């Protein structure tokens, strides 16, 4: 999510709480690996979602396997990253619809797992030209 200096109308030092915007959604996507993440980024940019937070992540099964190996322990020397990434963004419903159309055209095994939620308030995110929060 993009950040910028607060506009003057918010005043000095005031932490802005944006008005409830029924048109906005919280978008959460999980790409399984680097190969799946690359076209997802392209899709996000194509539909105009230009601000998002990307987090490295691991599935629960990967964590359980690492936690309790039985026959193989050397894998503990490798970096913990599995290549999976979580993308979080606040965006508009129409962009999410456009993203859905893009994802439908992606190869099935590369499609991310995802969910959207209605957003009641937005904290710390100012409308900036060219971002999804505009």
């Amino acid at each position: 999510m993009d950040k910028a200096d607060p506009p003057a109308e918010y005043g000095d030092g005031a932490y802005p709480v944006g008005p409830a915007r029924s048109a906005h959604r919280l978008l959460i996507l999980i790409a399984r690996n680097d190969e799946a993440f690359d076209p997802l980024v392209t899709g996000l940019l194509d539909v105009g979602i230009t601000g998002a937070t990307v987090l490295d992540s691991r599935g629960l099964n990967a964590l359980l396997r690492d936690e309790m190996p039985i026959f193989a322990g050397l894998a503990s020397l490798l970096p913990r990253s599995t290549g999976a990434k979580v993308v979080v963004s606040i965006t508009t419903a129409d962009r999410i619809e456009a993203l859905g159309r893009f994802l439908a055209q992606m190869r099935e095994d590369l499609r991310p797992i995802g969910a959207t939620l209605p957003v009641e308030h937005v904290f710390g995110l100012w409308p900036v030209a060219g971002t999804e929060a505009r």
Partner: protein
Amino acid sequence: MSALLVAASGPSFTDHWRVIIAVAIVVGVATLSLTHTSSRIRRHRALALFLGSGWIAIALGVAIGPSGLRLIDARTLMDARPLAMLALTWIGLIVGLQLRRAVIAAIPSAVWRTIAFDVLATMAIATVGWLALRAWIDDARWLPFAVTAAAGGFLGWSPETRSFGLRSGNGSARTFVQATAGLAGVALILAVAFADLLAPTIEGDGLRSQGFVAAGTALGLLAALGTALGARVLLVRVQRHQPETLVVLLGVIALLSGVADRLDLSPLLIGAACGATIANCHGPSMRDLETTIARAEPALATVVFVMTGVLLHGTHVGIALVVAAAIVAHRLLVKPALVRAALGPAAAEIDREIPLRGVTLREAPLALAVACSIVLEHGGGSTTSLAALAIAAAAGVILLPATVRAAHTEPAP
């Protein structure tokens, strides 16, 4: 194997049903170990220790085996032997797949030093044991194999760290314990191959000369290499399609276990050679394959534990108890000192998470898998070694909580 074949004299209809029931029980219990409920239960510290040692499954194996309900007898065991070979080959593949160049390069010198100390100590113990037993037992071709099976109880340790109270994360103690356990597993599988190569000369076995075994081993390794290269091509083609990946994987395992069986080689060695080759081929990552293979780990461990229980028949209880006591004493008194010596100043860092004084470092489940493969291949006194490992594993479970508690209350020297 010949000992197990003695009872074989034509299966009846009832025998067939006994095989089906026995296999259904093993597959059922193995499937249960893959459920989320099982994963949840194993997150409990005490249960992680108890279930990780496999005692419930070993008890089940004893119950359905020749010593219990006799659902599985010597003949049934031979009929179900392909299932055991498949499981052992799969385990070998798991061990081999971790041997990527990047992983080998990342092994810290402390782990190499610890393994070197551990292997030397185990070799010394095995040599003394072999010489003592050879003076006592006149003519036994199985003796080197029985000693090798017992040596697995002295080498390495279990990679499970949750019972020490270590949680998820990148703690240095956890990495050290798991990496050392992984490398010790590889050393153990190689030790079996060496025992296979050396045994005919040591025992003066005229039936299988050293050259014959060496040629068989070379042929088996070549077959593993060829299978790995072929599998790699197929796996790249079916990448991202898990059902197809599973089909290729099962085909590879079936082929390799057949090769190991025909050439009288350890399925663990052939599986590991194939896995290491696949892991080091150039090309795209085999994450799907690794996930598919690793996901089956608890089920394979369950099969090994049940197999251990079934094979605990016709053992010499007295010798098994003596060997088990030696294993426990080594793990309680000698091994922690060896680890501290190998680690040097770095021991203090590990010590903060796992106390290295007087703690029973439990034996690796892989030692049971290796011993099972030796029993299936050579029989004889190896069964007594397997019993010793099972008893030592149980003792480790009983002693670990007490020794950890004692170590935490003792002031550091």
